[in-house]
Structure formats: C-alpha cells, structure tokens
C-alpha cells in the first residue's frame, strides 16, 4: 500500500476529530484549528490526486482497519473523488474566512466555536459521502450532513432563520425517508450494500427482466429522494428562505457544498450501482430532463422577480441546480458536463453569497436592490468579485459558466431531435433571462449613486474577506482558462468512478 492511499480515511477522521475539538475550544483557537484542518485536507486531497495520476493505476479500494469488505467498511478513491475532495474544503475555507466578521455580528460571539464544530462535522460527512463505497454508510453521512446543514441555517437564532431551518428539515426528511426506503428495497432485492456487489446483482436482475417494476420503483424513489434534498425544481420550496436566512457563510456553504454532495451521491448511485442502461430502461431520465428544464426556466423567472440580492441569488441556485441535473439527465455523455458545472457553480455561487454580503454592508445594511445603487463605489473589490461570479452565471467568456453551457449544448446534439430542441431552446432562453436579472443588478451596483460614505470597517478587517473572495474569483476564472485540463481530469475520473 502506498502512503497516499491512507489520505482519504485520514482526512475524514481529521475533520471528525477537529469537530469534537472545536466544540471544546474557545472561538479564537477553534477558528485556527478549523482552518488548519481544512488546509491539511486540501493538501492531502491534492497529493492523493497527484499520486493517482502519477501511478496511473486507476481507483483503489481501502479497507478500514484491514477488514475485508462485507465485514469492514470500504472506501474507494479515484481521480474524481480526489478533485471533489480538494474543491469542497477549499470552498469551505473561503466561506469560513470571509464570513467570520458577519458571524460575530449575527450571533452571540461566545458560540463561534460551535459554528466551526458544525462546519467540520459537515466537512467530514461530505468527504465520507465522496469516498464511501457502501450505500448504507452513505445514508448515515447523508443524515449527518442534513443535521449539520440545519444547524448552520438556524445558527443566527432569529425567527426567520429558525423557520427556514424547520422548513428545510421537513422537506429534507422526506428526501432521506425516500432514499432510505429505496435503499432498503434494494437490499431486499439483492442482499448487498456494497456498490460493486450491488452493481453485479442489479445487472443480473436487469438482464433477467423479472424484477423490472421493482427496479424502476427503486431507481425512481432514490432519484426523487436525492432531488428533494438537492432542491431540484418541484421540490425547491425551502430554497429561497434557507439560502437567505442564515449568516452569509452558511448560505455559501449550503448552496455550493451541501446540495453538491447529494448530487455527487446520485451520480455515484447511477454510475456504480445501477449503470445508465438500467436507468434508461426505467425511463427515470425523462423525469430528470423534465424537472431540470423546468427548474432552469422557473428559477430564472423567480430570480427576476426577487427584490433582495440574497433572494435573487438563492433563486438563481434553483436554476443552476437545474443545469447540473440536465447534465445527469443527458446520460453518460452529460456526466462530465454535470460535474464541470458542479465545480464552476460551486465557485461562483459561494462567491455571489460572500461578496453579496459585503455589498449589503456597503449598501447600508440592506440588500434590497434599490438600496444598492452605487454600492460598487464603496467596496470595489467585492463588487468586482460579485460581477465576475454574475458573469459566470450568465455564461460569458472568461468564466467557467460558459464552458459548462457549451458542454451541455454540445452533449444535447447527440440526442434525439425533441430533446435537442428542448435543451437548446431552454439554454438560450435561460441565458437571456440570466442576462436580464444579473445585468440589471450590475447596472444598479456600478451606477453612480448616493455620495460615497466611507466604510465602517478598516482595511485590515476587510482583508480576509477580500482575500477569500479573490481566491473564489480566481476559481471562476480558472475553470475557464484551465477548462481543458480540468475536463480531461474529470473524464478520466468518471471513467474510473
């Protein structure tokens, strides 16, 4: 065994331990502990990816405590897992760094360490979700993720955030209930929980044809369960409140990490458990296509009507999640586009939330679009970052958003005529809608407004926020400039996923 093969397990364990540690330490120490551990996770995942690429051997399986699979718990890591495990802690690190000031204002500052503890718990659940090769382990960490995400929303402890948290919980419990039921039915049908064994059994069942109806029900339940949890269109009702009621770092983490974790799990289930042929046979792909196309249009229309910056950003999440599911619904060829958009959206959306909060400060504490006139002049760095992310949402050149839209459009060309027309028409229409509401906001931000009042904070306090936003903005730019190597990496990762 090579040394870097221990890294996935170590990073999960380290996050769990850090979570326990943060809950005991005072806020000023726990902050450094959390950041240090996240940094270690990024470095670890980067060396894991490098090790995998250099050895060229493909994904490997790791038995925890050297107990072989049906008895022990199995971890599987490949290039795609490595890339995701680099990305998630990076975004969490940026969100924690940039959101620290707002966190201290929004809550009783004594409890800052608990925020770090919840974030680290969420991180370990995300990483376990990424690496685990056992469906039931995935379920357990799925629930841990839901619980910690709920704690993140409720952290502000104001009425609206508590109400948003309970709405979030109710729909997410429906989602996890459906996922659990489908998991149990699948176990009942096959007698396995490990993904490789499940795959063999499902293939045999599909070839046999005897359990076609049961398999269809299982695939549909699992898909719908995870769609509810990641807020695909008809199940999105909790999104606008949940993504705008919390502290800014919570909003960024929820929209760009938590929902992505569920989508990654769905992708894993499709690739490793069912295989796309079985999904096609169950016609669930039509469900995904229909929901995602509707999500793209509906999310954009609702975002146009929003009067607050945070709500507009939340609604645009609904549309963007639609793009990712559109990639999944297009099948094997669309997976790469889906994962690419997952990455570019994770950068852009967290940047929108974090820099949007700075603009709210610059707008005098209100994020009504009307109050933001000229906010860009008072905090130009945040405004430039926000604009970069907004352009990525629209899909203009030099941002990752353009690449993912192109990939989706090109993939749609390989499909039947109605699908092709529907996807291309929706892509065109949604780009138009995105231009409408993002450019409108950009004009408001950059237009000369009220006389520039100096910001309350000193530059020293603003520096971490601007640095974190800068890193995320580099990510937005980097997904465009480095699109072809990243895409190659993803294709390679998907081949061995």
């Amino acid at each position, binding site marked *: 065994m090579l040394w870097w093969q221990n890294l996935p397990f170590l990073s999960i364990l380290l996050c769990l331990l850090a979570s326990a540690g943060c809950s005991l330490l005072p806020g000023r120490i726990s902050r450094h502990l959390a950041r240090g551990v996240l940094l270690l996770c990024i470095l670890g995942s980067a060396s894991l990816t490098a090790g995998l690429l250099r050895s060229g051997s493909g994904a490997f399986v790791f038995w925890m405590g050297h107990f072989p699979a049906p008895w022990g718990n199995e971890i599987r890591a490949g290039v795609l897992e490595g890339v995701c495990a680099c990305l998630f802690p990076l975004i969490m690190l940026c969100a924690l760094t940039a959101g620290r000031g707002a966190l201290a204002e929004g809550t009783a500052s004594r409890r800052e360490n608990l925020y770090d503890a919840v974030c680290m718990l969420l991180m370990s659940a995300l990483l376990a979700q990424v690496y685990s090769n056992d469906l039931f382990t995935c379920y357990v960490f799925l*629930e841990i993720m839901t*619980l910690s995400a709920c704690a993140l929303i409720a952290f502000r402890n104001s009425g609206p955030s*508590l109400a948003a948290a*309970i709405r979030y919980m*109710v729909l997410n419990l429906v989602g996890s*209930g459906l996922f659990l039921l489908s998991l149990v039915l699948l176990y*009942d049908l096959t007698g396995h929980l490990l993904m490789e064994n499940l795959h063999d059994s499902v293939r045999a069942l599909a070839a046999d044809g005897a359990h076609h109806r049961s398999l269809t029900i299982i695939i549909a339940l699992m898909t719908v369960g995870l769609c509810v949890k990641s807020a695909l269109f008809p199940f999105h009702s909790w999104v606008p409140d949940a993504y705008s009621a919390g502290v800014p770092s919570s909003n960024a983490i929820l929209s760009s990490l938590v929902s992505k974790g569920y989508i990654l799990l769905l992708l894993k289930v499709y690739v490793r458990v069912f295989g796309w042929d079985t999904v096609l046979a169950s016609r669930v792909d039509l469900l995904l296509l229909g929901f995602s196309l509707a999500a793209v249009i509906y999310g954009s229309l609702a975002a146009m009507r929003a009067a607050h910056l945070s709500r507009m950003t939340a609604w645009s999440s609904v549309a963007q999640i639609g793009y990712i599911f559109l990639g999944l619904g297009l099948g094997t060829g669309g997976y790469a586009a889906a994962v690419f958009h997952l990455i570019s959206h994770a950068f852009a959306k967290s940047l929108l939330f974090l820099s949007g909060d700075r603009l709210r400060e610059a707008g005098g504490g209100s994020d009504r679009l009307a109050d933001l006139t000229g906010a860009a002049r008072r905090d130009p760095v945040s405004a430039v970052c926000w604009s970069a992310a907004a352009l990525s949402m629209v899909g203009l050149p030099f941002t990752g958003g353009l690449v993912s839209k192109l990939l989706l459009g090109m993939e749609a060309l390989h499909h039947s005529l109605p699908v092709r027309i529907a996807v291309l028409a929706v892509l065109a229409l949604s780009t138009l809608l995105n231009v409408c509401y993002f450019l409108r906001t950009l004009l408001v931000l950059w237009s000369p407004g009220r006389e520039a009042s100096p910001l309350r904070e000193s530059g020293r306090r603003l520096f971490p926020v601007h640095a974190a936003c800068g890193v995320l903005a580099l990510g937005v730019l980097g997904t465009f400039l480095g699109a072809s190597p990243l895409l190659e990496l993803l294709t390679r990762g998907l081949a061995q996923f």
Partner: protein
Amino acid sequence: MNLSMLWENRPQAAAVILFGIGLATLLLNQNLIRKIIGFSFMDSAVFLFLASEGYIAGRAAPIQNPASPLPASAFVNPIPAGLVLTGIVVSVSVTALMLALTVRLWQRYHTLNLDEIIRLARREEE
C-alpha cells in the same frame, strides 16, 4: 394482482402502508409536533420492513456459543438488525433536533402551526 402474495408479505405490506401514513403526515399536517410524529412513523416503518426481511422462520438469534458452534444456517440474517440499530440512532438524533427547533419556535411565536410561523417570520423580516 395476486392476493395470496400480499398475504405472504403482510409485514412488508403493512410497513409500506405505515410509511405512506408517516409521509403524508409529515408533508400535509401543519402542526409541528404531528410532523415529527409523522417522521417517526416513516422511519419506524422502514425499520419494520428491514426487521421482517431479516427474520427467517424457525431460526435463532445470531449469537454463537463458542463451546458448541452452530453453522450459519441456524441463524437469522444479522445485517438488517445492525442496519435498524444504526437507523434508530439517526432517527433519534433527527427527532431531537426537530424538537429543539420546535421549542425555540414555540418560545418565539407561541404557535405550532407551520403556516402561521412562516407568516409571522415573513412579517418579522420585512
């Protein structure tokens, strides 16, 4: 549809019906406490399903006596029991968090009706 098949699988059929009741309560009932009860129903139904699948008539609990070891065919399937245990832990923690949120909301708004709470929260936000 074969009715005798339904009768043979009556624990599973009952579990799925209970799941449906729980799901409907969780989604449709506006009272937060009833929602939580609905959630418990839903999870318990899944546990009933698992437990009934793992049980094999005429076999013993999977506890091996080292003095006189028995073959695996003498025991029921132990894995569903393990899954149920894990599931119960998850379900308990979710219920605890939901109840804690409900207490907070009650202290603030003095109602358990979710629609009412959302209305009041919206007004507070304005």
